């Protein structure tokens, strides 16, 4: 341990701590624009300058290690003046107008200008290059607001293992973006939006569908249905001042109704449906492999996360046969709503508008894939992020905190706890195991509280094994089989898992992949700012939501049973094949 004095408070910190870390431990917050949790400091923004006794120059606290008996002043007049100057310089190049900026409510640069008392701009600088990149369905980049902190570069390369962004050029003319400053649509970006999630300013955001959704709601010729992904209920509250981890399911349903949606439904419903289809698909593949001795692609990978699908199509086409053919719950919902539900209410597919609320920007991409119109029209019309839904709630003048708790509508609003946990890393796997185990043995999954703890939590790659015994006659071939599963979240972890598989051969039967760190609860469309403490709170909220449900297994969902009885007939049947399954294509990284 090292002794250090921060603003005349003496504390001891572990060897290897930075001044920034030590200050946080002492309850002092030093502002920074480039620092990221778990990542090497890069010292790009120079905002975190502090005064170290005995040193001539100010030190960047994010990258200066504490030495024994160091004395630091984090908020001395000199340190504050230096920081203010750094921010004044940033602002002098910054070409943004806060009142019209998407980030004005929680912009870190704006907050910093306030905190440092920037009252005027002494420098009139040349403004950064102005180019709006709206080339992808998911994201909009505005270089003129970029402060070149490089958080997006780090998250894209290190957390997501994609590397679509890097500083291009040098000096003032540096642009943070894809190779040779081309647009994002021209490179192999998976549209996950993690860059937008970490950007401190309004330089990367989702492509907004808010106006289009308002127009649809106002159109009397359209019946507008909304579905909300499981991860929304654990995060939307943050946009209205609730603590991370506050569940707002009931208020969210009330808000959606007040906004004017004609049907307030739940992606959870099709998460349950996904489990039936995907569980059956897994068991079918296992039967083919073990009984019929056919060559089938194993392990099977989950396919709910569209960023992961893009990643596999660009970077690992050899594994495309291993991807479950199940569409994601968002797309299953669109297809079921515009066929089954449309029939029920006597409408044509084209008279319905399906809006989804997703924690994700890649869902915007997924919705417009050409395969995703099995109802005859585009199955999901518009995708709102959690942030965009919050915007609509504000625009509608709804006082969210005073809303009553309401329920989702039947039948597409009914769901089990297994569907809720789709939001968490490890959750799809746990939900699948709850159902598959029971199908095969007739007994409940033998784990405490139905939770498979080995695959829960924030560790990057998780594994579990489960020996199957006491099988029912149809499933005798699985007797004594040790079912091996793995879970990864964050595409960087996924890349490691796949590289290991390429080198050593497969060692699992079933693998869950979620694009974003923590799973959907940490998606690129969630309220900013998401770090591990926020992730863990949202994960906790989702498990609590699951545990609070009377029905905790997908196959128990009566509305799903009715859907099969009345319409789909059987899992992997002809209708399912047409509406609920898809195929994948290799894409060339440009």
């Amino acid at each position: 341990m090292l002794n250090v004095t921060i603003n005349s408070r003496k504390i001891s910190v572990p060897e290897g701590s930075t001044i920034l870390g030590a200050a946080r431990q002492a309850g002092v917050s030093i502002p920074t624009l480039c620092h990221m949790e778990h990542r090497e400091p890069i010292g790009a923004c120079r905002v975190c300058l502090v005064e170290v006794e005995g040193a001539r120059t100010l030190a960047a606290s994010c990258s200066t290690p504490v030495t024994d008996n160091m004395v630091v002043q984090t908020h001395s007049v000199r340190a504050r003046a230096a920081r203010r100057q750094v921010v004044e310089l940033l602002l002098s190049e910054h070409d943004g107008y806060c009142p019209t900026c998407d980030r004005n409510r929680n912009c870190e640069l704006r907050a910093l200008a306030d905190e440092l008392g920037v009252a005027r701009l002494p420098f009139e600088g040349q403004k950064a290059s102005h180019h709006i990149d709206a080339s992808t369905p998911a994201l909009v980049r505005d270089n003129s607001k970029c402060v070149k902190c490089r958080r997006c570069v780090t998250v894209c390369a290190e957390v997501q293992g994609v590397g679509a962004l890097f500083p291009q050029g040098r000096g003032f003319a540096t642009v943070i973006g894809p190779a040779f400053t081309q647009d994002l649509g021209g490179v192999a970006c998976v549209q996950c939006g993690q860059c937008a999630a970490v950007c401190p300013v309004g330089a990367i955001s989702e492509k907004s569908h808010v106006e289009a959704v308002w127009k649809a709601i106002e159109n009397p010729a359209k019946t507008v249905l909304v579905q909300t992904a499981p991860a929304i209920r654990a995060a939307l509250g943050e946009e209205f001042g609730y603590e991370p981890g506050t569940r707002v399911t009931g208020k969210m349903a009330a808000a959606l109704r007040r906004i004017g949606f004609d049907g307030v439904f739940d992606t959870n419903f099709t998460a349950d449906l996904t489990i039936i289809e995907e569980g059956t698909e897994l068991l079918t593949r296992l039967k083919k492999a073990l009984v019929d001795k056919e060559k089938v692609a194993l392990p099977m990978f989950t396919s709910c996360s569209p960023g992961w699908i893009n990643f596999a199509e660009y970077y690992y086409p050899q594994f495309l046969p291993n991807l479950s053919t199940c569409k994601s719950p968002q797309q299953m919902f669109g297809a079921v709503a515009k066929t089954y539900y449309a029939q029920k209410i006597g409408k044509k597919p084209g008279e319905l508008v399906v809006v989804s609320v997703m924690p994700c920007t890649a869902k915007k991409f997924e919705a417009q894939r050409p395969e995703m119109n099995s109802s005859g029209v585009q199955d999901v019309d518009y995708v709102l992020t959690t942030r965009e839904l919050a915007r609509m709630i504000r625009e509608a003048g709804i006082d969210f905190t005073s809303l009553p708790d309401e329920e989702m509508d039947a039948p597409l609003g009914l769901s089990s706890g297994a569907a809720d946990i789709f939001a968490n890393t490890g959750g799809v796997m746990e939900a699948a195991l709850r159902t598959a185990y029971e199908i095969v043995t007739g007994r409940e999954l033998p784990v405490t509280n139905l939770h498979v703890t080995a695959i829960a939590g924030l560790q990057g790659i998780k594994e579990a094994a489960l020996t199957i015994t006491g099988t029912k006659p149809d499933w005798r071939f699985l007797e004594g089989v040790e079912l091996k599963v793995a879970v990864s979240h964050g595409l960087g972890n996924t890349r490691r898992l796949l590289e290991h598989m390429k080198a050593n051969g497969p060692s699992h039967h079933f693998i869950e992949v979620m694009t974003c760190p923590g799973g959907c609860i940490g998606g690129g469309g969630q309220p900013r700012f998401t770090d591990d403490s926020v992730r863990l709170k949202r994960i906790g909220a989702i498990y609590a939501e699951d545990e609070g449900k009377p029905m905790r297994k997908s196959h128990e969902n009566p509305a799903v049973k009715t859907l099969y009885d009345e319409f789909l007939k059987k899992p992997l049947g002809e209708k399912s094949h047409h509406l609920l399954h898809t195929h994948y294509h290799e894409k060339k990284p440009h």
Partner: protein
Amino acid sequence: MPKKNAPAPCACQAGEPVSKATLDARLDEVIAEYKDKPGGLIPALQLTQATFGYLPEPALKKISAGFGMPYSEVAGVVSFYSFFTTHPRGKYLVRVCMGTACYVRGGKDVLEAMKKKLAIDVGQTTGDRLFSLEVGRCFGACGMAPVVMINETVHQRVKPARIGDLLNRVLAADEKPATQERP
């Protein structure tokens, strides 16, 4: 780029066009040699530029794959250093000085005239691959401003109206062509 790093003479110097297969084989060698060396990217890019005369996109993609480095990062390095170019350069590299002295004494008009005469913009190469146009900073000939440097030769007190004559003289003299060592 230091001379000692220069590989075999480039296509234009040897007079004979080198086959694509030879160039690609050379690129493979370069990647194999440098991919595991710390800081190997820059020398690999220099040798590639020396081989092709510029850095063609397919070569950069191959380097990115070979080095296991994102293409955006390779592009970032290429665009950071002004001596790298991703466009083929002409036989003659025309650099119009935009230093202060040249600028105030008509450098800008010279540049405009040059653009018009060659029918290309700054950073481009004529269709016949004879001329590339760039702007330069001070060549140390301020007393003779405005100046234009064509390959190794500085041309002084250039008049916009006489650009055509200048280019014809250059062609007639068949000056030493631009080599890739030129920044």
